[in-house]
């Protein structure tokens, strides 16, 4: 059954809430009272429940099946997190109520900060960023501020970005006014310190690197790279999207990283929710820690203090404010709940299991699908390219869409850009061995079918989803971005 749009179901006079009109009073709106209809449709509660329940059923989710999206870390979202985030003491607290009435909220933020610093081995953190890319912006802003503090703002402006970077890295560099220069990736999928050495100089502000990188590999020369960058007077930003691979195995703080965002909705299980909200705290090295944004947390005589104004920031030199209030508290509660549940032992085990699962998939598929950097150990995700599909009439996209018919969310496709037709698979630690075995068996079955020339199974896929393939070109060429009322019949007839 199809589900109509809210605007087709709803009615101007319908409502799903009951409030009595206020008693007559004299309005204080001046001349600015809204006139005319807004045009909003309303639904009674039963209709609203059915509409959204039906809509939900048209979505795939972790709870319904594996979502092996590389670099997205779609792991289990515990329900305890949701329950804790809804405690009135967290959910029903205003960011500007007196600080004396929220000591528990500040303590929670401080505790979260302590865990994240310990996990990453970094000495400072800002909880303010509202998503991963916001965290990148925060980290690069801190680096830019540190450069400015050294009086090099005018000269040190270029950011080095490896080919394999997320699109957010160059976009973030652009937002802090820094042009990007590419660093080629060597044949084994990692960054060559020699290449970095060639590129660094007094114009270089920072290197943005991802580690483990988007090929699923640990940048084994990271320490050497860091040394080269730091000696050149520049800084290292690390994209922390893949932190889930290395908890308890390596600490960014030991690798020479100056700033790194932590996607709480990846490594620390806050729900993706179909695109957000995220949360992207940034850990900072001693080199840049003075340059975090407002607000700051500080341990004072009376416990945790909240610093909201630059003048109160003591030795800190905040570069400003990235958003209103103190950050994504709701996500902090969930992430801390997750961490307390796992403990240090559980977090390390999670990383181990995640890496084991990716390698298990790798060996399960290595004979049928092609590994651009050879059949070697990977981190929490394994990268295939489309060389094995050559001449099959099946593309990476087709293959991914056929996975839908088998009950899976497709893997990350066509990313990273350094390999052709990339398929980046990250199972996470949340899948059982039985689930991994079934996944491997299913992909083997699909791969054999593709090689056998059964291309229709792929090019027409998905067949068993709520929709067949959608016309994205049409959507972009003739954008219809909102509902508009159908023309009245009389008008239409004119």
């Amino acid at each position, binding site marked *: 059954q199809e589900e109509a749009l809210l605007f087709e179901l709803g009615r101007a006079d319908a409502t799903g809430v009951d409030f009595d009109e206020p008693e007559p009073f004299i309005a204080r709106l001046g001349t600015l009272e809204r006139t005319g209809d807004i045009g909003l449709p309303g639904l009674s509660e039963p209709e609203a429940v059915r509409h959204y329940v039906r809509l939900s059923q048209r979505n795939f989710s972790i709870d319904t099946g594996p979502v092996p999206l590389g670099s997205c870390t779609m792991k289990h979202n515990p329900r305890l997190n949701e329950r804790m985030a809804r405690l009135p003491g967290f959910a029903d607290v205003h960011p500007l109520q007196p600080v004396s009435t*929220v000591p528990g909220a500040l303590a929670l933020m401080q505790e979260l900060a302590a865990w994240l610093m310990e996990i990453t081995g970094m000495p400072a953190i800002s909880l303010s960023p509202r998503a991963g890319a916001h965290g990148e912006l925060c980290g690069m802003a801190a680096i830019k501020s540190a450069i400015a503090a050294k009086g090099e703002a005018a000269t040190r402006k270029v950011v080095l970005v490896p080919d394999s970077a997320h699109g957010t890295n160059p976009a973030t560099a652009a937002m802090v006014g820094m042009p990007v220069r590419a660093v080629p990736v060597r044949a084994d999928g990692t960054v060559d310190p020699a290449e970095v050495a060639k590129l660094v100089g007094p114009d270089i502000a920072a290197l943005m690197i991802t580690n483990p990188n988007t090929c699923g590999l640990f940048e084994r020369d990271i320490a050497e790279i860091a040394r080269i960058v730091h000696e050149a007077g520049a800084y290292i930003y690390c994209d922390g999207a893949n932190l889930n691979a290395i908890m308890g195995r390596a600490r960014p703080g030991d690798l020479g990283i100056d700033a790194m965002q932590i996607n709480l909705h990846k490594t620390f299980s806050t729900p*993706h929710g179909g695109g957000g909200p995220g949360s992207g705290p940034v850990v900072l090295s001693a080199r840049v820690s003075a340059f975090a944004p407002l607000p700051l947390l500080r341990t004072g005589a009376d416990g945790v203090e909240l610093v909201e104004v630059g003048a109160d920031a003591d030795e800190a030199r905040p570069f400003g404010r990235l958003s209103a209030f103190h950050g994504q508290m709701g996500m902090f509660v969930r992430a801390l709940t997750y961490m307390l549940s796992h403990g*240090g032992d559980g977090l390390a085990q999670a990383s181990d299991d995640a890496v084991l699962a990716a390698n298990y998939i790798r060996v399960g598929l290595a004979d049928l699908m092609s590994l651009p950097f050879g059949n070697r150990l990977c981190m929490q995700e394994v990268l295939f390219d489309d060389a094995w599909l050559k001449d099959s009439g099946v593309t990476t996209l087709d293959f991914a869409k056929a996975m839908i018919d088998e009950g899976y969310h497709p893997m990350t496709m066509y990313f990273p850009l350094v390999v052709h037709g990339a398929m980046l698979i990250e199972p996470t630690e949340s899948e059982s061995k039985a689930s991994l075995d079934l996944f491997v068996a299913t992909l083997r079955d699909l791969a054999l079918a593709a090689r056998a020339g059964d291309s229709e199974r792929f090019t027409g896929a998905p067949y068993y989803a709520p929709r067949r393939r959608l016309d994205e070109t049409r959507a972009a060429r003739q954008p219809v971005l909102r509902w508009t009322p159908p023309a009245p019949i009389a008008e239409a007839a004119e």
Partner: protein
Amino acid sequence: MRYLPLSETDRGEMLARVGVRSMDELFADIPQAMRAHGLPKLPRHKGEMEVERLLSRLAAQNRPAGAGPFFVGAGAYKHYVPATVDHLIQRSEFLTGYTPYQPEIAQGFLQYMFEFQTQVCLLTGMDVANASVYDGSTACGEAVLMAHRVTRRRKAVLSGGLHPHYAEVVRTLSALGGDTVETLAPDVRATEDLLAAIDDTVSCVVVQTPDVFGNLRDLQAIADKAHAHGALLIAVFTEAMSLGLVTAPGDMGADIVVGEGQSIGNALNFGGPYVGLFATRAKFVRQMPGRLCGETVDAEGKRGFVLTLSTREQHIRREKATSNMCTSSGLCALAFSIHLALLGEVGLRRVARINHAAAVKLADALGAVPDVEILNDTFFNEFTVKLPKPAADVVAALAAKGILGGVPVSRLLPGAGLDDHLLVASTEVNTDDDRAALVAALQEVL
């Protein structure tokens, strides 16, 4: 560990299949010198019961808005959200789904986004809206950057009625990008001369209504002058509920409308997550940041929805993107959309009237307290009160009596000479008893 399905036996079998003897070997690529050996300084894993107790103890140290009289606003508002909203957004298929890049299995997300975009257009009086950004303040910052792109100018003028946090965000982003910002002085009584600040170098004027002091602003004259000089008017709101009762910014000439949607569908959450609304004129759509959902058809000709115009976005355009954002405020936007669908036209208008009535009642009562002055001619559900004492002290004294009385302007604008100013909000959650309690307590502490 309850969240980890692999048993030790599983691990052993899998390691053997991978061809390594131990977990350690899996991490061979990490040079020995950099290896960490677990997280020994962190406590061991804890059972659910124990974790719940720990967090409940922390939560219990905070004073929830619902625990007594509550009049705090200044950019985040306590409203009643129907139980249905929170129930629905917790459905697995909404809570644990990914960004809808695979539209065939994400029509539920995409359809609500299309509906959300339309709702935001209607509320703001604009042509197009994105599927939400982080919050109102970041929406405001992004709007200024967008105005720079549209006008190819790099100077923003900020009203003195703009929420100081929002102004700070604009200044931070502008400083990073090397752009210029002119911020007018705090404008408690909405008397600033914005028109004078507009010239041919200005890319945009940013005006909030209701402004941070609660005043309603007529934007038309500003829009006219801005347009005459090739600049854009960015209209800002921090209280989405006001749009049910006050003139839509789109009807007063705004080119970009941004604001905080928290009031509809979302809890206070100590500041986040919230939901940033972002709408503009159709002609500017390709300069707009953020995710957009559009209608199309599938291979069988059935109506369906996809993310579209992604050539604006960071994952395609990299450094040429309209923004680096790659996260919307998904679930919060969904909550907004569900709550607004439940309210409907009649419900929204009525709740908005109740809010206004509540604030009028409170203003009348507070205005009658000796030495207390209400500074607003107009307001929606929040206004500014001048006290005979520093507002921060008064708020602290009220809090000691169990009443959260508002936000001292000094907390937002320290050193601005407005230490005796207090922002007070009243919404549909306040009862007559709440208001009477505030008035009585205020009389005691003054």
